[in-house]
Structures are given as C-alpha cells and as structure tokens.
C-alpha cells in the first residue's frame, strides 16, 4: 500500500482514530460532553477530508477498496446522517440519563466506519466485513436503552433476521465464487454466468434487499423501527439504507447483458410490490415510527425504480436520479426523526410517536411542527421541496423508458401516500389537547436541524443548485 493510497483513505482513518479516542476517553474520564465533542469533531474532520480530496475518477486502494465519485457522494450523505445523529443524542439523553452516554458515540462512529467502507468496497471480503461492522454496531444502538422491553425485542428480531440475511449474502457470494473463481466484484460478475452463479447473484441481492427492507423481505422493519429509541431508528433508516443502496446499485450496474431481462423482471416486481404494499400498510398506522417504517419500504421501492432502469440505457440520468432521490429521502427522514427525538427522552419507557401525542404541535412549537410538515410534504413529493425534484427525476426516467407499469405503481403509491402523510400533517395543525414538552436548550442541534430544513426548501425551490452540478459531482457522462 503506497502513501498515496493511505492518503485517499484519510476520511476512514480519521474516523478510526476518533473511535480510539472515544474509547480512551471513556476509560479515562466518563463525560457525555467530551465524548459527543470528539465524535462530532471526528465526523466533521472526516467530512472536511472527504470534500478536500473529493474523487473525480476511480482510484483503487489495494484489492479491497476503491475510491470513486458515486461512493464519495454517498459518503457525504452518510457523514451528514452521522453528524445529525450525534447532535441529536445530546438533547435526547438529557442531563441526568440513566444510561451511559459515551458508548453510543463509539457505536455510532463504528457504524459510520462500516457504512463508509461498504460504499468503497470492491471485494467480497470487504463487503462482508463492512456490512457486519455496520449491522452489529447498529444492533447495539437499537437496544441502547436496556430498560425498554420493546427495544430489546426489536433488537433481537433484527439480530436474528439480519444474521439470516448476511448468511444469504455469504452463500450467494460463495456460489458466485464457486463458478467464477474471482473475489473482486467486477471480475466476479463479468465472467460467464451459469445457473449456479445466477442463483448466487439473486441470493446476494436478496441479502441486500433485506437491509433495504424491500418487499418481500420487509417483515422485520415495523417492529424494529417501533421498538428502537427514536434516534437509533433514524440511524437505521438512513445510514444503513444509503450505504447498502450504494452497493446495490453498483452490483446492479454490473449485471451481464444476458441476465438483464430476468433481473429487470424480478426487480420491477419488487419495486412495484414495495411501493404499493408499503404505502398501503402505512395507511392506518397510529405510530409514527411504524408509519415511517412502511413509508421507508415504499420509498426504497421508488429508488429501486432507478435500479431497475439502471439496467436499461441512460446511465447518467439513472445515477443522478437515484442519488437525488436518496438525498431527498434522507433529508426528510432526518428531519422527521429529529423532531421526534427533540420531543422524546431516552429514559422514558416510550418515545413520543403516537399520532394523538402530537396533536396541535404547530400551535405550541411552530418551528418544530413546520419542519415536520415540510419534511412530510417532501416525502409526499409536493413541489418546492426536494422530494418533488427526486420524484421528478424518477418519473422522467420511468417515462423515458416507457416503463408504464412502474409509472402506474409510482402514481398509485404517491396517491395513497398522500393520504397518510396528510393525516399526520392535519394532526399537527389540529387544536392542541395537552402540553407537549420539548428538549430545552440544545441550540446547536436546533440550528443544525434548521439548516437541513432550509436546504430541503432551498434545493426544492432552486433545484438547479445541486441538479445542474450532480453530473460533475458524480463524474458521469
């Protein structure tokens, strides 16, 4: 490994150093404040390093990793999520929390590390290692409040099912390896595929689809989302989805031509089923976390549309569309969960997430409610939010390739989605019933959330700001 390769790994190395620093700090003197500080500085430094040496072409770093623009863009998103979660944990735990604080940041940094490595992977070994690094630290985060029975139950479900999914991934890679004799993803998929290799590939995609909670591998999502502390749910719904999707689209783009038709059929059905079922099941939910779980299923269905079309022709628009849509989804999810986090306490047995608990939020905390409103409007794809631009990209793609089934499913899904998003918004604006306490102080966190909310509107009103640059950022075409 040359000095230059090490240099390219700088963001990852910074995070690793941060992990060590938090560990040492926790053993030396326990302090929530210092741990949060170190974690934030680490993530910000990593962000700075990533931006400073943002890749404009593909560079391989040993046989395990590569450094390329699409991965770079996704890493930016991952760090954005990491910073938000780190900032939110402070007000969420409050001053006198029963749980220890430092380990959360340790686990957070570990899962960020796993996610960033996953995005950079080009080898089976690094894929498996980083997926597991991400999932296992996520598992501990999901069960972070040991007093909550539902959190433990959810974490246990996640552990078992995620283990099963990883074994699918492993057996899939094993089959692919058996037929191709290659361990590097590109070589592995470029060698001629027999039936064994094909089934291996399907198994790999199934493993990833589990992490993305695509129908029919979505059953774990609502329970885990509902049980976990709300800040951990945020991490689960954004970090792991973004990282896994980056790998997913990378693999899908590598599908050999003779296998394309079958894959298109399989993925189309998964996308259509996810969009319809996810939206359908979200309709009657009273718990916001469950609602967001089903909505995540539906939204992953939408992004999968890009994945399906990726095997078609227009590669540049596909990657732009998928990136933009994922960005929009992440921004909206961060905002919604951030508001819930600011209203909840880790010490309580339950988070604030039932709809009646939020009734009249607008009249008590207008800023929080406004942020939640625009986030839900963005998920519903209303214009002047970033979500509309994301939907516009995907619709343009689907129409361009005349995938009318996908277009129809997207329309029906959006129409159904509108109903339950609107239901939440209406609740926020209903006459207030009881006092809703929110985290006092935490101005840095609130300013950060405000900035994200402002960018949601800004990128929706001036889509050109990012949209015109996205080609250069992703270095395509």
């Amino acid at each position, binding site marked *: 490994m040359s000095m230059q390769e090490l240099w390219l790994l700088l963001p990852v190395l910074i995070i690793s150093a941060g992990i060590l620093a938090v560990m040492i700090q926790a053993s030396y003197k326990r302090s929530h404040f210092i741990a949060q500080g170190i974690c934030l500085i680490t993530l910000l430094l990593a962000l700075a390093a990533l931006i400073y040496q943002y890749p404009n072409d593909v560079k391989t770093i040993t046989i395990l990793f590569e450094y390329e623009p699409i991965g770079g863009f996704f890493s930016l998103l991952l760090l954005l999520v990491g910073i938000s979660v780190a900032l939110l944990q402070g007000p969420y735990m409050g001053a006198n929390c029963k749980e220890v604080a430092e380990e959360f940041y340790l686990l957070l940094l570990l899962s960020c590390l796993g996610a960033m490595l996953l995005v950079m992977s080009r080898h089976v070994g690094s894929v498996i290692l980083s997926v597991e690094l991400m999932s296992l630290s996520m598992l501990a985060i999901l069960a972070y409040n040991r007093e909550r029975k539902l959190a433990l139950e959810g974490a246990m479900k996640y552990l078992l099912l995620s283990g099963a999914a990883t074994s699918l991934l492993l057996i899939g890679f094993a089959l692919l390896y058996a037929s191709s004799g290659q361990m590097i993803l590109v070589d592995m998929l470029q060698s001629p595929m027999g039936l064994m290799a094909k089934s291996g590939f399907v198994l790999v995609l199934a493993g990833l689809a589990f992490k993305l909670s695509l129908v029919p591998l979505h059953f774990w999502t609502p329970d885990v989302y509902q049980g976990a502390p709300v800040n951990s749910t945020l991490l689960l719904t954004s970090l792991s989805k973004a990282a896994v999707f980056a790998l997913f689209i990378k693999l899908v783009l590598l599908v050999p031509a003779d296998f394309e038709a079958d894959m298109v059929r399989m993925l189309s059905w998964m996308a259509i089923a996810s969009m319809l079922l996810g939206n359908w099941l979200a309709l009657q939910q009273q718990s916001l976390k469950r609602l967001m779980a089903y909505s995540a299923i539906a939204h992953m269905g939408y992004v999968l549309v890009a994945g399906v079309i990726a095997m078609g022709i227009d590669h540049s628009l596909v990657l732009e569309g998928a990136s933009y849509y994922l960005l929009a989804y992440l921004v909206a999810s961060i905002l919604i969960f951030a508001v819930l986090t600011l209203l909840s306490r880790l010490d309580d047995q339950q988070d604030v997430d039932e709809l009646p608990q939020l009734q009249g939020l607008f*009249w008590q905390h207008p800023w929080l409610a406004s942020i939640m409103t625009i986030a839900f409007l963005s998920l519903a794809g209303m214009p*002047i939010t970033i979500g509309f631009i994301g939907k516009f990209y995907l619709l343009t793609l689907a129409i361009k390739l005349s995938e009318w089934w996908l277009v129809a499913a997207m329309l029906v899904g959006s*129409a159904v989605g509108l109903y339950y998003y609107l239901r939440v918004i209406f609740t926020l604006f209903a006459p207030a019933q009881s006092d809703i306490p929110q985290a006092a102080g935490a101005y840095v966190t609130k300013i950060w959330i405000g900035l994200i909310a402002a960018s949601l509107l800004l990128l929706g009103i001036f889509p050109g700001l990012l*949209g015109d640059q996205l080609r250069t950022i992703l270095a395509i075409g």
Partner: protein
Amino acid sequence: MVALSFLIWLPLLLGVCAWISEKKFKGSGNWITLISLFGMLIFSIYLGSHGTSSLSWEWFARFNIHFALLFDGLALLLVVLTIALAMLAVMVSWNDIEKHRGFFHFNLMFSVAGIVGVFLAADLFLFFLFWEVMLLPMTALILIWGHEGRRYAALKFFIFTQVSSLLMLVAIIALALFHQSQTGELSFNLGQLQQLVIPENMQYWLMLGFFIAFAVKLPMVPLHSWLPDAHTQAPTAGSVLLAGILLKTGAYGLIRIVLPLFPSATMEFAPVAVTLGVISIIYGAVMAYSQTDFKRLVAYSSISHMGFVLLALFSWHEVALQGAILTIVAHGISSAALFSMAGLIQHRIHSRELGKMGGMWASAPKMATVTLIFVMAGIGMPGMANFNGELLTLLGSYQQFPVQTIVASLGIVLSAVYGLHLFQRAFQGPPNVDVVDLHMRELVFTSLLVVALIYFGLQPHIVLELSSETITSLLQIAGEARP
C-alpha cells in the same frame, strides 16, 4: 421584465409581514393585507398597461427548465380578478376569524401568490409547481378555520386535486421528452411546445392527462364530489377564493394548455367533453335545487355554471370562446358575492340551514336587496355580467353542438328555479329570525360587487378586448387543425 416576478413573491413577503404584525398589534393584519392587496391591484394594472410582457430566467438547466412568466391580456384579467376577490375575502372575514389571525392572513396571501403564479407561468414545470403550491394554503384555510366537517373536506379537496395533477405531471414530462426526441432538447416552454407536431394517438393520451387535472378543478361531473364539501366547510374567505378563482384555474388551464397544444385531439374529444359539460349543467342545477344548506346550494350552482365554460371551450367557436371568458369573470364575481352573503348570514345566525332562515327581508331589507341582485345575476338576468357570458356561450355552441346546447339552455331555466327558491326560503315568508342589517363595511363591499356585476353586464367589451389576443390565436390554431 423583472417587475413581473414581484407579483408572485410580493404577496408572500407581505403575508409574512401581516403575520408578524398581527402578533404584535392585534387587528393590524387586516389592514396590512387589504392595503397590500390594493397596492398589488394598482401595480398589476400598471404592469398590464404596458401591453404583453414576459420574463425568462434560467432555473434548472439540467432539464432546460426556465422560470418563465407571461403577462398578457387574459392573464391580466384573471390576476386583477384574483386580487380583487382576495380583497373581498379580507373584507368579508374582517371580524370572522377568531383564532390564529396572523397565520390566516399569511395563508390568504400565500394562496394569492400561488394562484397568480398559475396565471402567469409560461413554463409547464413552473405551472405545475404553482398548481400544487396553491393547494397548500387553501387546504390550511379549510382545515384550520373551516366549519364542523373541515377535516374531511380538506382531506378530500387536497387528495382529489393532488391525485389528478399527478396525471398532469406525467403528461408534462412525456411532452417534454417528446420534444427531446423531436428536436434533441428537453423543453417545458409552452411556446416551444406549441410548435410540436404530435401524432394523433399520443396527443389524445397527453390531452387526457391534462384534461382530467383541469376537469377536477373546474369541476366537471363526475369528478366534482370534492367541491360541495370544500365550499361548504371552508371559511367565507376560503369559499370566496375557491369559487371565485380556484375553479377558474381549471378553465384557464384548458384555454392555455389543452386547446393550443392538442387541437386535433381536443376536437376529437369535444363531443364527450361537451356532453359531460351539459351533464354538469343539469346535474349541478338539479342538485342545487334540492339543497337545504345555503353554501352547498351555491356550491352546486357553481358546478352548473362551470359546465357552461366547458361547453363553450370545447365548441371552439369564436362567440362561444368569448362567452366562456365572460362567464369565467362573471361567475367569479357573482359566486364570490353569494358566498360572502352566506358568510354574512352565518355570522349573524350561526347557521347555513335555509330552514332556520326565512322572512329576513323584514329585519334586514338592505341585505335582502343585495342578495336579490346577486341571485338575479346568478340566474343570468339581462344587464348583469352572467347573462352575456351564458348567452354568447349558447349562441356559439349551438353552431357546433346543437343538441347539447338545447339541453344546456334548460340549465338557465333551472338556475332561475333554484335561485329564486333560495331567495324565497331565506328572505321571504313569515319572519323566522331577526337579523342585524348590513353594516357600513359590509354595505361598501357588497355595493362594489353590485357595481362590478352591472358594469361588466353593460360593458362586456372590456373583458373581450383584453382576451381577444388569446381567442384569435386559438381560432387560428383551430383553423389549421380542423380538417
């Protein structure tokens, strides 16, 4: 011209001002909103006096989308109508709104911005943006300040319009992509898209996408069911804006987009559309007759009147088109006037039920007189604005669709039935309730409305001159497309 964009962001800005100042000084929001609307009225007339103006800024270069506005005669007419009716909405709900008054003014101004945006947009992407955005404040108006069934009505209103506009979005994108396949460049510009020669079959599907979105807004039977609920449950200001202007955006979309972009498909589709228009006329009138709720009755009568617009537009005849535009303006004023009367009555007796009214002439003669004038305008009495519109519509459409037009003219008879029935139940007969007669403020704006109705009734040529450019170009397109 940069000043053109002021028409859109100025109301937003002033709405925020009204919101903030209402928080600090109670009661100031009304004045700020009213004065800024009046300023905007003057400003838009000033802009309009310079003739047609336009504006185009680069906006989203990846898809060749521009922030393009076009301000011609027809747009001027509707923008002025919008602002004037928004002023009416402020005046009519001067003391009506009890809670969250600042936020109310913000929403009012926000919806004005959205609606003006729809009338000005010359780029389909921008048009769609405004089309959706204007729903948000309107839904908020219904949801927060509406009457007992507001939640259901707001939800229904939002979902109906939103879902139908999704179809329009698909049609817009497909149109832009077709432009790309023909010329190598994506385009959402209305002017450029009009140059396209679109194959018959495709034209038909695209036209349907747009048509459904506009027909829901218009509304046309059988896509009307959101309207009675939304109009009835909305606060008076909301009903005034909904009936006065929001319905007109549907007609405007047909004039600006559907007719010029898809001439031959429209002609092919015309018999269906015209028949649906006639069904709307009769159905709206019959349903209006059977209502016992003042606002619901007026709401159904809107369906009936807007059926005339649909009939006229799809007849593609000069006289009918003129009739359509006259009806748009006249119905905007007269339905807004009737809804404000409903609001005034409801403010006094806390009910919209006609059964609880009756004999109000005795205690409130001024109110009764004004209402009688509005009802007469609504049923198309000669000398009032609506008469011209409906007469020209029937005259023009008869040349193209004689059978449908004969049935449609029954609508006028029926409108007299439900109109007089309404007046009779509310104001005549034995006195049922004692109401306070109109105050000074109410007298001012109701008499302004009366003047407007009579003025446009006697001087329709002002409206016709402003819209003549649009109508001429439509007829030219029709001439080319007609086999």
